[in-house]
């Protein structure tokens, strides 16, 4: 419940403030969102599995976002930014789907 509140507050803040993203940061935003999504779903599944931990969530979230952005940055510097982004999104996407499937199994008790 409290977690959902945090999410709501964050979204509202983002929509209200509409912060200006610096140009150099712009390409990393979408991939950071996907990485964050992966961390959030992982946390939700861990919570349902009964092994959620605040510290692990914070660390996994921040490291996910940072590493995803770093990979894209590195790819841009090497001239394979698009391909590396695709790779990151594929791996994160698979993880997200697997986690959501497990969450669904938990919630539906199937």
């Amino acid at each position, binding site marked *: 419940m409290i977690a959902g509140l945090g999410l709501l507050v*964050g979204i509202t803040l983002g929509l209200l403030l509409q912060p200006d993203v610096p140009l150099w940061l712009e390409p990393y935003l979408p991939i950071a969102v996907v990485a964050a999504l992966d961390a959030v779903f992982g946390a939700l599944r861990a919570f349902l599995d009964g092994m959620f931990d605040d*510290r692990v969530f914070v660390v996994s*979230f921040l490291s996910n976002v940072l590493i995803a952005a770093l990979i894209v940055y590195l790819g841009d510097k090497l001239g394979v930014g698009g391909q590396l982004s695709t790779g990151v999104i594929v791996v994160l996407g*698979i993880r997200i789907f697997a986690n959501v499937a497990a969450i669904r199994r938990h919630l539906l008790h199937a």
Partner: protein
Amino acid sequence: MPREPDEPERRTTDNPPPQTWMGLLDYVTAHAVDEDYAHVSRKDSSDSSGGPGPARPGVAALIILGLFGLLAATAAVQTSRNAVAAESGREGLVTQIQSRSAKVDAVRERIVDVRKEVERLETQYLDATAEGRAVSGRLDRLGTNTGSLAATGPGVKIVVDDAPNATSSQQEVLDQDLQKLVNALWESGAEAISINGQRLTNLSAIRQAGSAITVNYRSLARPYVVSAIGDPNSIPARFVETEHGGEWLDLKATFGLQFDLTMEDSLSLPAATRLDLRFATSTEDSR
């Protein structure tokens, strides 16, 4: 209840780590959750055996989730902003293209005007002096020769067409047939030739483009009227004696192509539409 295989436990045994024997995709799917969660919960349960249950999300999780919401909202806002910018950029380009092409049209019209003006001034200037008149005459001769000026004079008119009810391409007039005809006419003393109103110049090409024959890059429609200025009395006789002229008579006899030669007292051939030399220059001063 189906559970994922407990991978971390397998690690503690002598088995090799899972990523070595699992496929990459299987591994990614099986390890969708950070292993740290399992690690920490196992440590907790061993520290205080059967201690407190799983931690509820605390303030840190709240802040991180808020951050996540902020991130997602910002990304969405930014993307929609960029879409608006891209759209307005596209519209700007479209208006630019329109205004530029209008400008090109205006400039093109001006080119035509200026060219006419240049011609007028040229003749005016040349007509002013005796030498100029000579040059003007020379220009006229050259223009008639090359096809940049209209020409009139006696000559022959040849109308050729496909055989009636032609079924095969051999019974149709092809580009090479027209080429042969024109070559035969040059050979028999023609001084200026036009096909369906397209004046032949030193830059003209007669070729097949699809089903049509093009001359000076303009498509022609059947029948083909070849007008040649020259001595109307000698051209027909010399034409028959040339190699290609003989071939044409063969074509007429064998495949039934239509070939109709008439002598004309006065033919007028138009000037060629364009004779722009962009690269070739004279090696000597022609004047």
